[in-house]
């Protein structure tokens, strides 16, 4: 009896994104990290009308139960972020690195032309747990890198999303 999905369409930009949506924590926090990237289609063109949402554990590895994702107070960690892509297809989040042996951030992507969202995971490079992670191990080796962010400098990571094509990001059936 599940209600079927329909596309988010092109005209959500005035309704779903909100001021502090990408700012899971303020950028000035010394422990803040930046995750950013570009969303591409199968022709390699950036999507100016995608919506990305992240949801993640806190630095303690626990699922956040604090409210405050819509109205940020700068202190409690609510674990949820939302960002629409800009004209160049770019998105960003300021957040905290999740804890645990194999930290990852869950990522949903909505867009015009996606009749249902795609869901994936942003893993972090150089984590000792990655090598033994059963989820990463279950992905064909040649596509595994699409799930791992690229470290740019100490507190910044790049994670591009390719919806289709040779570099297609691994999406999960969950």
């Amino acid at each position, binding site marked *: 009896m599940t209600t*079927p999905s329909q596309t988010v*369409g092109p005209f959500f930009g005035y309704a779903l994104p909100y001021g502090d949506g990408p700012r899971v924590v303020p950028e000035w926090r010394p422990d803040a990290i930046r995750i950013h990237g570009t969303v591409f289609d199968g022709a390699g063109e950036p999507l100016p009308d995608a919506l990305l949402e992240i949801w993640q554990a806190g630095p303690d590895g626990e699922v956040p139960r604090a*409210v405050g*994702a819509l109205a940020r107070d700068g202190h409690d960690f609510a674990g949820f972020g939302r960002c629409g892509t800009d004209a160049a297809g770019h998105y960003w989040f300021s957040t905290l690195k999740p804890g645990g042996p194999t930290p990852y951030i869950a990522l949903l992507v909505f867009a015009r032309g996606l009749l249902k969202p795609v869901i994936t995971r942003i893993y972090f490079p150089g984590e000792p747990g990655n090598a033994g992670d059963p989820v990463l191990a279950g992905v064909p080796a040649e596509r595994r890198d699409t799930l791992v962010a690229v470290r740019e400098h100490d507190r910044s990571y790049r994670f591009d999303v390719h*919806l*289709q094509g040779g570099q297609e990001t691994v999406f999960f059936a969950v």
Partner: protein
Amino acid sequence: MSDPHPPYLHPAYQSTALRAPSQPLIMPAYGPDAVELSSPVFGHAELGTLDNDLTRQHRGEPLGERIVVTGRVLDASGRPVPNTLVEVWQANAAGRYIHARDQHPAPLDPNFTGAGRCLTDDEGRYRFVTIKPGAYPWRNHHNAWRPAHIHFSVFGTAFTQRLVTQMYFPGDPLFAFDPIFGSIADEKAKERLISRLDMDTTVPEWALGYQWDIVLGATPTEDS
């Protein structure tokens, strides 16, 4: 149970051609984990008290047919989902979105933005007061028109249940011509996107009422 959702690739909806993933989706070993099976928590204090009334966001009243849209958010077992965030957005009565890229030459309404949100109550119920949206043209194919619809975004209790969809109105003659509505193969599943005129929801002398329940999907763990 067959998948009620549309496929990624539906050629009649042209934007799917370059955006639909072409590789098979992968089931994570051991299924979704604790993060994916949980959902953000939203609090009443984060929302404005009038966020669910799209007719009272400006100085004057919007033009068009005032309606009440209400229903329940339910999980796959039919249990209500309380305190979950429901967001809506829509065109105005003339079929025009306030969005900057909407180029349809129909009038904007200075008294209508067309966006609202609320948290479900203890029984999983949401309620919006709004204006019935108009049909509008789009450029998918020659003479393409969308049936009147309200966009809905719902969270539920798991990130994997996250649902964005569109609610339609009963008896819309455009259903047969719309590749987005038509992307759903199963006729019964299509019907679940159509609201029902409800005289108990209708407020006499004031607004027609529509009922529409939203049923979230089971997670793979629940299925097994």
